[in-house]
């Protein structure tokens, strides 16, 4: 096996035009976040006794966790099943997962009424084995730790042998250096155990996020209420894993003007339509068994959202990605990945918000400005930290042939073929 691609810090300016816009959004989000912490949920959100959960749960937490699935799916494929050609994708996927989960926790803190009690589930005296949320919480907590451990070797690789702290701190240089060396040796031995644990924990909480709403049978719309929600959540998380990696890889290649790894991306995309097909079949079978097909025909917000979710999120990308030639086109790869990501977003919003109908309600829930600002701020912040990390740490693998970055917006098709 000869692998020419080596992960390297990207040589780019941090503040591109896009990064400035994102910084602006992050700033607004941060202000909204602080505003919420000071003034409480009532002033800042449209949550109510009728609709106790909003987009901070549906998007920041549920969608965030699903979209971070690239981390464990790629790790399983490359490290456990040893498909070595995908190794160049594991680091960006790992970084996304690590940052994704970190921002999930940050987002969750905004939503929790008593955010300062977030550590309570760790106390044995408060363990509650019947609670699905408890399991999700514990799994996410352990998995986040594992992600940091998995990411640490990348930090070691960058700094081992180059620790050079300025001024007074310089006396700690050798200490840190030896710490890095010891960690490096230990981690090298046990890393695979962490990787497997990460995959197991992911499967557990990805599915359990679906189990969450199974507790509200009388409040959920029949298009989404099914006891197999956990299976559907797991399958959809597995399906969105690789598309998310593809989506990011293409985006960063455009942003940093490097050549997209089209062959690897096309190759990893071949698993996705199969997973989507499984998802679609189970979904159809489930609707048939529960006799819920009729609800698709009713003209309501629910049926519209359901059709949108299935057509854009599942059927269209599945059809595109089943075709070999389309998988080798950056344009189609990007389009289908975008569709799937949108589908996941819509699915989670549907399950947690659209399908939720309290027996007594005086209106609908629609997110407030602060809710939207905080969510947008979190996403922007995540992208910025990601950008910062790939500029300073060896995450993205670059092929030796570099992009000729003359034009600002590279035309993907022409450059890829060239």
């Amino acid at each position, binding site marked *: 096996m000869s692998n020419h691609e080596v992960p390297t810090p990207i040589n780019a300016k941090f503040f591109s035009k896009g990064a400035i816009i994102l910084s602006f959004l992050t700033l607004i989000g941060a202000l909204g976040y602080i505003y919420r*912490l*000071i003034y*409480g*949920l*009532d*002033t800042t*959100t449209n*949550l*109510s*006794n009728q609709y*106790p*959960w909003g987009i901070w749960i549906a998007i920041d937490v549920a969608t965030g966790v699903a979209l971070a699935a690239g981390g464990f799916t790629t790790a*399983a494929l490359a*490290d*456990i*099943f*040893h498909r070595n050609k995908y190794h160049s994708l594991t680091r960006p996927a790992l970084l996304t997962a690590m940052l994704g989960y970190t921002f999930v926790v940050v987002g969750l803190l905004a*939503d*929790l*009424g*008593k*955010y300062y*009690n977030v550590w*309570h*589930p760790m*106390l044995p005296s*408060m*363990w*509650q*084995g*019947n*609670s*699905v*949320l*408890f*399991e999700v919480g*514990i799994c996410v907590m352990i998995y986040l730790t594992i992600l940091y451990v998995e990411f640490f070797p990348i930090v070691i690789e960058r700094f081992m042998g180059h620790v050079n702290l300025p001024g007074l701190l310089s006396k700690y240089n050798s200490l840190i250096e030896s710490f890095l060396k010891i960690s490096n040796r230990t981690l090298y031995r*046990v890393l*695979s*155990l962490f990787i*497997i*644990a990460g*995959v*197991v924990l992911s*499967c*557990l909480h990805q599915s*359990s996020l679906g*189990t*969450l709403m*199974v*507790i*509200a*049978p*009388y*409040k959920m719309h029949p298009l989404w209420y099914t*006891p197999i929600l956990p299976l559907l959540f797991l399958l959809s998380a597995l399906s969105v894993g690789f598309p998310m990696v593809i989506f990011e890889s293409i985006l960063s290649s455009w942003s940093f003007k490097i050549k997209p790894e089209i062959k690897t991306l096309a190759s990893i995309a071949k698993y996705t339509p199969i997973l989507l097909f499984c998802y679609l079949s189970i979904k159809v079978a489930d609707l048939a068994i529960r006799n819920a097909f009729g609800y698709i025909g009713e003209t309501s917000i629910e049926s519209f959202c359901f059709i949108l979710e299935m057509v854009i999120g599942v059927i269209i990308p599945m059809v595109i990605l089943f075709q070999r030639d389309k998988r080798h086109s950056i344009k189609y790869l990007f389009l289908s990945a975008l569709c799937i990501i949108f589908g996941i977003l819509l699915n989670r919003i549907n399950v947690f918000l659209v399908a*939720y109908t*309290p*027996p*007594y309600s005086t209106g609908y829930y629609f997110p407030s400005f602060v809710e939207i600002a905080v969510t947008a701020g979190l996403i922007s912040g995540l992208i910025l930290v990601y950008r910062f990390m790939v500029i300073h740490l060896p995450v993205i693998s670059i092929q030796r042939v570099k992009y000729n970055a003359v034009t600002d917006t590279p035309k993907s098709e022409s450059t890829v073929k060239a």
Partner: protein
Amino acid sequence: MDKDRRKFLKLSTVATASLIPSVTSASTEHCEDDFDNAFGVLVDTTVCVGCRNCELACNQQNELPEQPEEHFSDKSVFNSMRKPSVEAYTVVNRSIDSQPSELGSFSKIQCMHCNHPACVSACIVGALTKCTHGVVSWDAWKCIGCRYCMIACPFQIPAYEFKEPLKPRVMKCTFCYDRIHDNKKPACVESCPVEALTFGKRRDLIKLAHSRIETSPDKYYDHVYGEKEIGGTSWMYLASKEFINYDLPKLGEEQIPQMTEIIQHGIFKSFLPPLALYGFLGLVMHSIRQNKKKETENDEQS
């Protein structure tokens, strides 16, 4: 390497096993007898006159925001549906189809104190508990404010202090736990001038309800709401006609937490499924790695 690995596996097994509590189903621990011995209240909606004394007594007992007494004699509140809120643990609603002039068809709404409460099963930190008296109570200190209990409750009862930035509480009927403890009736029951509310052992109340239906079958619709709904509730209702409305929705007899608990405890059955997955993935990883090693060795030799 292999030895280390096995050692680590063992260690991590022990670690994870001790990390998460043994998953015995709390709500199936009780036998049905416990629930029948627990306290309950029978609400006879055919007797209720809608005086709202119970609301006043409740607010006073629970030190809810002071309201002038005139507030509680205002009958115009019946023109719209109300739900218990952070300012009122209990409210009286008039049945939607009854004429304004007609008396009767009032029903008092509060936490039903279910036998198998969905909120208790849902709560991430066990802040909600069902105690032997039948009371579902909430622990302010444990609560983290996730509001999953509100999602879970089929009666849409728990209210949340969204306005409170630092110490928001989940607000709902406490079943006057302290009063029950002191052998007193709940404040609302005591305040009722027409004895629409009967406090007692759940078992006796079920008997009482059925005997009332038997003695005056014309007056009552033959159903004790809460006797069997979602596995039974501590608060039960009698009415003159079928009483399915927003407050007392049509519910099956299956306990609500059953499905999620079956799924959860299935996935975590003695931790076997996750451990099996771990072992399987480890095996796959190991064997493929060995194969690859052999391949490269062969390549080097040839």
